[in-house]
């Protein structure tokens, strides 16, 4: 036999051990890092494939939340008469939809990780965790486009004298989005792990997300939920509530400012991510047998 060339010579000691039931907490982080190129390419695929064969192309990233902001402005503010303070209702909704649309997109796509990729997962191995992470990253592009739209409307309303003011506090958007990403990734992992055996949660997820949206101050101010002081803890217990409310606070200068609540959101999100990672890691090992 001819000499193996350099590609065929692994680093000495390179070894993969396959056995049932690897440790509960053992994650192969090194391997995840080795597949970082796949992450980049999957993000690109998600972005490229989404608007192929549509007339408006990437405009849909903008139009979707814009349309729902308009519809909700009419429903909540014109019809139901919910006050948005001194902020124009369209701007009020557009602002809250930044984190919310990102969150719900992540959870919707991410929780279907196993079911939507069953064919791929059944034919080739790579760290499955790459897929939900790619979802969370690629949705960031949509978020950036939405931010642009938001700023256009912001400028327009500000020029017409709306009492909005934004300062350097707008930079706090970065940690707010980071918490949203962590929470949504964690939930995606938890839900997709649960769908490995039974699909029930897959049917429930869209309904729960909608309920969650109405329970969060997306189309109405937080004040409406916390009016009754004895129940306000419940409103704050929802990690998305404080994220949505604080997004408005930092971008529009109107809303509550409660760093402690943000810290709670962050901690809850990290716990969810931790639990999600464990559950996902456990499910991925034999998931192809049942999907």
């Amino acid at each position, binding site marked *: 036999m001819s000499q193996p060339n350099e*590609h065929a010579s692994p680093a000495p000691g*390179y070894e993969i051990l*396959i056995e049932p039931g690897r440790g509960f907490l053992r994650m192969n982080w090194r391997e995840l890092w080795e597949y970082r190129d796949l992450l980049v390419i*999957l993000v690109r*695929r998600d972005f490229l494939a989404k608007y192929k064969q549509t007339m408006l192309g990437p405009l849909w990233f903008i139009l979707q939340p814009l349309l729902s902001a308009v519809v909700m402005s009419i429903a909540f503010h014109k019809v139901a008469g919910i006050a948005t303070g001194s902020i124009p209702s369209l701007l009020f909704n557009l602002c809250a939809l930044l984190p919310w649309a990102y969150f719900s997109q992540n959870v919707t796509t991410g929780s279907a990780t196993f079911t939507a990729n069953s064919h791929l997962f059944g034919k*080739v*191995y*790579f760290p499955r965790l790459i897929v939900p992470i790619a979802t969370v990253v690629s949705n960031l592009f949509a978020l950036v486009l939405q931010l642009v739209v938001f700023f256009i409307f912001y400028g327009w309303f500000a020029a017409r004298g709306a009492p909005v003011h934004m300062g350097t506090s707008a930079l706090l958007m970065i940690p707010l989005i980071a918490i949203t990403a962590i929470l949504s990734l964690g939930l995606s992992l938890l839900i997709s792990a649960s769908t490995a055996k039974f699909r029930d949660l897959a049917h429930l997820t869209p309904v729960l997300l909608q309920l969650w949206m109405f329970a969060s101050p997306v189309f109405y101010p937080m004040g409406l939920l916390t009016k009754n002081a004895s129940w306000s803890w419940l409103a704050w217990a929802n990690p998305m509530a404080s994220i949505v409310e604080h997004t408005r606070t930092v971008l529009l200068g109107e809303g509550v400012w409660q760093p402690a609540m943000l810290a709670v959101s962050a901690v809850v999100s990290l716990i969810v991510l931790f639990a999600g990672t464990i559950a996902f890691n456990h499910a991925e090992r034999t998931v*192809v047998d049942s999907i």
Partner: protein
Amino acid sequence: MSNTIQPMVEAHGIGKCYRLGDGGLFQRRDTPPAGALGAREGDEPGMFWCLRDVSFTVQRGDVVGLLGRNGAGKSTLLKILSRITEPTRGSIRLRGRVASLLEVGTGFHPELTGRENIFLNGAILGMKRAEIAAKFDEIVEFAEVGAFLDTPVKRYSSGMFVRLAFAVAAHLEPEILLIDEVLAVGDAAFQKKCLGKMDEVAHQHGRTVFFVSHNLGAVRALCNTTILLQDGTVAAQGAPNEVIARYLASSAPDEAGGHIAWPADKAPGNDEVRLASLTLTDALGERASFFEAGQPVTVDLRYEALRRVRGMRIQLFVHTSEGELAFVATDHLRQVELLDPGTYRTVWTLPGALLNRRGYNISICCDVPGERYIIPAQQFLTFTVGGAGNQSSHFPETWPGTVCPSIECKVERVS
């Protein structure tokens, strides 16, 4: 180097168990292909052992052929080796990077262009971006799709799609490569190219290859060792010729005189097409498994289309009992483009004075060319040709050749 003396792959007592129908409040879900393996004494009810106590070691540079009838556990073993699923018992030590090619074109996105898909597919198969970029031109050249690089692959012909997909996979550079019956797609010229590439990968680059195929000729040509799986256990292991002979001997199915009929639940097939029966008849229309050399052999296949199927063809493979392919016949030109649900029959007549005096095996394969398999090639019947009537009948000794057609021959004195 220390790892030249250590085996590349060490498998110890691998077992894989599926739970049949794991519940739900109102329904039962089905899991693996049922009926492939009967339960054994002492098994927990509802558990299905697809592999039992499989152990082997493979050295660096070995090309291992995995043989076995459908349901013997070959695919499950490949899935475990490629880490798609975990074994229930046992352990495997792999001393190198692994890439698996269980299907051509896994992860291709129809909306993306050929160029984008090369990167996507390469990354899914485990290549780094830089590696793909470095091999990009080679891949494009191998696939012969240069002019269509920026066309979405959904507009590719199935042949182009397969070529591109195989080209990406062929340029993987893992130390251990797992390949499942993917070579049977594409036209003959491309198949030859693929086999050549596999040979190069294995013999020049010193990689370890696991190769599952029903193409015994390819196994014989490419592999230096073989593992025969039977009912989930290793039945034989060693040099290809011996194992192939063992495989052919063991795989002669329970047929009675050139006829096999399947009950609906045991029939080869899927939810599209299901075989019903396969019968060999002689010139008088009698079922037979022995034929006079000068007489025709009629192969009568009955099958049921359960759904509408487009573009299906059935192929008849005739192998010698030593496993060499004699020829392939197809009903492709006679087959209707759109097969409506119903029961059908394809009849091939192998003319007299064509076959040699020897034993033959009959396999049937049902596919949509270049697209997918409906029933992968599987051997069902054996028959023997002897007696008089062909060119070689006047000679007592075995006559070489997979067939022995009657050839016109003239001898004359010219001066």
